[in-house]
């Protein structure tokens, strides 16, 4: 009999925050989402509201089925075959995020500090550490999150405070003159759609200590993430200027490189990379952990441990031997044209369909496991 593993509310909040924050920390896709001008911070703030709206269906379902993951209750709602297909879609998305994580890991390290280190080396070492962690289970991942994620948040605040003197807030003027509301809303929706980490929250529901706090956990994560995003965007724009940030592949890294306080605190971008690698590590662990959990429940296998190495190996092979590991491909995948749309379908459209069907069948369904 497997012991029941539990996550505290703080742990799951930190895991969600790290998952969402890591993309912004390195790539900041908002700088390339149209209208890509000085009003983007408004979009960021608005995206908080959109995130809440987008996530209502899946959150509602998770409250109805507090002992099940989305993979399990979709089988319950849709019946065996269709339910398994939907479950597989969820799992492939989780694995895809893991793959993307792996790709961006080698991409970011290779472009910023270690161009001569081959991709397989970075990926292998990261995977070895991740697989070990995933074997140890969710409570270990939760505790790792408790160590790493506060550090990541601390670095963000630290970098921003160090460059306050270089900021020129005039770049944000004129407000709302160069972009119309529809574009700002589009950017907000696109940013909100990147909050696919709601899947992690829903997958983790059976493991939560306080299931009643589900809404509270969700709201706190959204608020923390939105505020941090806004702080990052505003400071990067204020230091680099809007266009220079748009042209940078890694705006926040470029921003960190310019920090120079009294000719004394300078050249500290390695801290940026360290924090980012730590965050990517946590993110990979959590996504692949839940992918294996989902797979185990679809195939009715008792333990998820059989799938950890196979999934990681498949992802490694895909990452190394396809054309995916190119900066251009990764950046295009991340852009507003692809990732948010895919994530929107997974986190909002599919749960909405599930929700509608659930309402028709709710009398004949039992919500317990």
């Amino acid at each position: 009999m497997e012991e029941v593993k539990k996550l505290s509310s703080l742990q799951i909040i930190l895991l969600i925050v790290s998952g969402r924050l890591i993309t912004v920390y390195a790539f900041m896709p908002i700088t390339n989402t149209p209208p890509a001008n000085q009003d983007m911070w408004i979009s960021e703030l608005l995206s908080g509201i959109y995130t809440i709206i987008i996530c209502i269906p899946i959150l509602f379902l998770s409250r109805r089925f507090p002992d099940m993951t989305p993979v399990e209750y979709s089988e319950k709602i849709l019946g065996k075959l269709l339910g398994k297909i939907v479950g597989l879609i969820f799992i492939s998305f989780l694995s895809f995020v893991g793959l993307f994580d792996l790709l961006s890991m080698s991409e970011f390290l290779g472009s910023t500090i270690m161009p001569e280190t081959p991709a397989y080396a970075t990926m292998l070492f990261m995977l070895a550490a991740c697989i070990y962690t995933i074997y140890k289970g969710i409570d270990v991942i939760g505790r790792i999150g408790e160590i790493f994620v506060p550090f990541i948040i601390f670095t963000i605040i630290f970098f921003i405070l160090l460059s306050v003197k270089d900021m020129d807030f005039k770049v944000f003027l004129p407000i709302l003159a160069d972009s119309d509301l529809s574009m700002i809303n589009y950017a907000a929706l696109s940013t909100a759609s990147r909050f696919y980490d709601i899947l992690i929250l829903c997958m983790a529901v059976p493991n939560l200590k306080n299931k009643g706090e589900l809404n509270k956990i969700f709201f706190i994560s959204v608020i923390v993430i939105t505020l941090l995003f806004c702080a990052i965007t505003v400071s990067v724009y204020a230091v680099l200027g809007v266009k220079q940030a748009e042209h940078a592949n890694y705006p926040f890294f470029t921003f960190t490189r310019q920090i120079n306080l009294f000719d004394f605190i300078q050249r500290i971008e390695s801290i940026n990379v360290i924090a980012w690698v730590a965050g990517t590590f946590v993110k990979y662990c959590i996504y692949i952990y839940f992918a294996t959990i989902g797979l185990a429940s679809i195939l009715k296998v008792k333990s998820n441990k059989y799938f950890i190495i196979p999934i990681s190996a498949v992802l490694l092979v895909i990452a190394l031997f396809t054309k995916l590991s190119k900066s251009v491909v990764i950046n295009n995948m991340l852009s507003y044209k692809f990732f948010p749309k895919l994530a929107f379908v997974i986190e909002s459209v599919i749960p909405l369909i599930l929700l509608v069907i659930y309402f028709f069948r709710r009398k004949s369904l039992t919500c317990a496991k």
Partner: protein
Amino acid sequence: MNKTAVKRVISLILIISFAPAASGCWNRHELNTLGILGALAVDMEGEKYKLTFEIIKPKPAAGSKKGGGEKDEPVKFIQSTGDSLLDALRNATLSFDRKIFMPHAKAYIFSEEVARKGLLNYIDFLQRDHETRRTTYILIAKGSSAAEMLNATGGIEDIPSNYIERLIEGQKFNSKSLSIRLLDFLKYYYERGKQPVIGIIQKKEKAIKEAGGEKGKTEYELSVEGAAVFFEEKLVGFLNGMETRGLNFIMGKMYSGIIVSPSPDGEGINSVEILTSGSKNDVEIKGKEAKLKVKINITGMLEEELAKIGTKDPEVIEKIEKANSQEVKNEIEGVIGKVQQEYKSDIFGFGEVVHRKYPGEWKKIQKDWNDIFSRAEVNVEVETKITRTGLTNDPVNKRED
């Protein structure tokens, strides 16, 4: 084998496999394989680039100097040519035994020719590469080739690049030069309503020879006085020191400086040290005509009074304030006039003011803005407040008889 033994073996394997990663020695740069770049000078030779590198020599600490009067040069100069900046950089390893390491570069110096052809067309590498930094200063070499700037030593610093860096940072004492980093240059360039300006550097013959210097040999020092004016990516001309100070006044980058103005009563001069200076720029648009307004607020301290007037009297101080304001006003009107007539390039950022104030209009006039700017009416207002008069009241040359 029981379970604990298996676990031990696995952890041992893991530890051994992770150990090499911990030292991080894949992409390593050992100090004794690097040539640390102090400054880079870029010249053109026909269609090719000629790069001059100043490499800092790792030398033993000052205490352990070998006997003998031989002076050890702290740097080495290396030249290489190539089809592009990066190509030339790598070609340097053909004749130099260390790989040139960019992150510690203090300044990139470009020759006038490169700047006139369009600086932005050449420096993509400097922002794309992961070793270069955007916090490095950029300068335009005026008068002579960029390479020549590297071997003049006029300062206390032994290393020429440190000397150049200190000169640039001296901007805050004289305000007659510009300290522009690559980051700032790109920021100005991307902004539609502001044209870039960069600091310049020129070589000057030294007035006083060094003690112990060779006879008959001319010695040179450097000067960063002035500024280079760009229109989009191309250099269009230069400003002299006083004009650059006017520019700094308008851009609000005036940290200190001495304003010399004629004394109110006509005989002699007085100097005011600037303590703080604030600027407020405004533009009024009427159709296709613009009116530029500059408002400067100076707080200063009377540092020199060479006329025989009593500075105890508040009225006299007020007169000095007025004279001082007039001086600054002339300076600012001078620089705006010159830029309007000769360069037609809005280096002051009035376009950004228009963008903020009339966002709708700006979209229409954005393309012709530099023309509109160059025929705009200028209105400068300067207000000086002398808060301190130093340690004496009446000047020494004023005698009570």
